[in-house]
């Protein structure tokens, strides 16, 4: 008998199991690529290289480092979100809430309560994790689109509370600048931007490591099973609710930690980050990169944020101004370009950025050995 399903969220496209990835020369190099990337990231602040068009100034300039730091936080955030979406198949529309909790929590504890940064960070991350656990405990009673909407609802309450500015805590639509007197000297000022860069890099590395570790663990295997068929997991003797709650809480905690870092980088909190659009952009980042893949979400997050910030400059550039009006007007709207990029991305690299590498490899293979049969 066919079960009549409640409206289910379709599971995201599956990751190819590692056993299936093509071997060969590329396969041997691949495991080292992350290390190469890390090495590049570590040396970058010492380089005066100028990449015209890509960054405003030299690589070691504060503006560039700041932009990269923001990008990396979102890379980590997307990787954490993917733990929910790509690896467990839970479509949450409220993930921005935990990130916002991280940002506002740190900001309020430092600025309003006058706590030293490390204490504020500790309280915030703990609080964000508990918040995620509590909301998850309620929201996970539903599945599919219903789950997405319940999480959205909670996030919306968060957004309303921030906007209401109870007791002047959040600063409402004006946001709350961080009072840096409680923050270590090394994290304040333009000349210290590089330290924020290290912090963001550390956050990214930690998230990526945690996500890899967890998804490669026995629990990660269960999460992958949940993504495909929850009922089946139950019949195998595992409690789906418990596992989903763990994933939800963990992802929430990671997001809150990201919030702490972001608060320091931007030097304050603003209500932009409580909007449902942020969750939606997290989803876009993950899909752009390739859900459930190792590097896809990270790349997606970095690319998204990069575009989000840089397109503003692109829109104002002379090259665009020189175009005829019917082209330059829309092109000078950053959101137009960003939206167009999403759409093109779907058609030109389905499966996300992460699927590019294997496909390039395939392409190269087929060029070398024309139409080899099996």
């Amino acid at each position: 008998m066919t079960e009549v399903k409640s409206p289910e969220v379709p599971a995201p496209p599956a990751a190819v199991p590692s056993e299936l990835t093509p071997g060969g020369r590329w396969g041997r190099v691949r495991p080292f690529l992350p290390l190469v990337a890390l090495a590049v990231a570590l040396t970058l602040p010492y380089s005066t290289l100028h990449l015209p068009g890509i960054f405003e100034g030299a690589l070691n300039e504060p503006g560039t480092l700041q932009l990269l730091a923001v990008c990396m936080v979102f890379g980590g955030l997307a990787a954490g979100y993917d733990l929910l979406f790509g690896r467990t198949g839970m479509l949450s529309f409220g993930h921005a809430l935990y990130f916002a909790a991280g940002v506002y929590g740190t900001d309020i504890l430092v600025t309003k309560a006058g706590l030293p940064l490390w204490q504020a960070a500790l309280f915030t991350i703990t609080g964000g994790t508990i918040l995620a656990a509590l909301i998850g405990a309620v929201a996970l009673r539903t599945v599919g689109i219903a789950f997405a909407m319940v999480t959205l609802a909670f996030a919306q309450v968060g957004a309303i509370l921030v906007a209401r500015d109870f007791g002047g805590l959040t600063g409402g639509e004006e946001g709350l600048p961080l009072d840096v007197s409680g923050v270590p000297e090394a994290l304040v000022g333009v000349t210290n931007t590089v330290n924020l860069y290290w912090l963001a890099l550390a956050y990214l590395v930690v998230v990526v490591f945690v996500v890899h570790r967890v998804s490669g663990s026995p629990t990660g295997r269960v999460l992958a099973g949940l993504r495909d068929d929850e009922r089946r997991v139950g019949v195998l003797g595992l409690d789906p609710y418990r596992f989903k709650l763990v994933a939800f809480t963990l992802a929430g905690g990671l997001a809150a930690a990201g919030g702490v870092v972001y608060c320091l980088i931007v030097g304050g909190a603003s209500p932009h980050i409580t909007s449902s659009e942020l969750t939606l952009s997290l989803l876009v980042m993950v899909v752009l990169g390739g859900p459930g893949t190792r590097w896809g979400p990270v790349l997606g997050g970095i690319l998204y944020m990069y575009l989000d910030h840089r397109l503003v400059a692109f829109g104002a550039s002379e090259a665009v101004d020189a175009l005829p009006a019917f082209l330059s007007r829309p092109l000078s709207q950053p959101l137009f370009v960003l939206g167009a990029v999403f759409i093109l991305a779907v058609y030109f690299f389905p499966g996300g950025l992460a699927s590019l590498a294997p496909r390039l490899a395939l392409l190269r293979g087929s060029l070398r050995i024309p139409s080899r049969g099996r």
Partner: protein
Amino acid sequence: MTEPVLSVADLSVRISGLHILQGVSFTVAPTGVTVLLGRNGVGKTTTLRAIVGLTPRAGEVHGTIRMGAQSLLARPTHRLVRGGLGYVPEDRCVFAGLTVAENLRLAERRGTTPAYDRVYALFPELDRRGRQRAGSLSGGQQQMLAIGRVLLNDNRLLLIDEPTKGLAPKVVTEVAEVLERVAESVPVLLVEQNLAVVRRLARDAVVLAAGKVAWTGDAQELLLETGLTKSLLGVGSAEVHH
């Protein structure tokens, strides 16, 4: 022998890198049942789906598939079906959210009179359960609905994938009888694992193995020859005869 109603020549199907069918050729006679046999996973379903144009997006199809003078490749499924190619899929695919009557109504084709009496005569259950949602039907009932759906119209050829799977013996017999009667007027290309049913219905047989055609010929002959059944289907003819 008269012109075949369907001829498949050198059909190859690749799905995401796997070469599932590798040059399959066979024909379907204009009358009676042609049965497609083979073990699990050889590509029987893939063959039927390639014929009706339902190969998944990641798949490539090469070769020729013709119905009379007309090539079927590259024509959209709904055109093929409107042109008289009925398809009953392996997993029934009834519309769970629609009622039984709505499922049938959906199968009506424009410009022809649907033969409800024929369907209800074969499956009175469908008439009785007209207002039940198809998703709550039992497996067997769903199969009846799936077959009933194509019988509503007059077809030039029916493709039926494992119609007796999961049916009670009594219903298997009934379905076999129905198919037998259907086959009197329309040629059928049938995939079937139940050799008793094959024995009762089939005129010609095509046996697939490892993505290729291993044997074609008279079905009854195949089932009679213990050696052949053993080597091709892996069963002794005793089992064929129960």
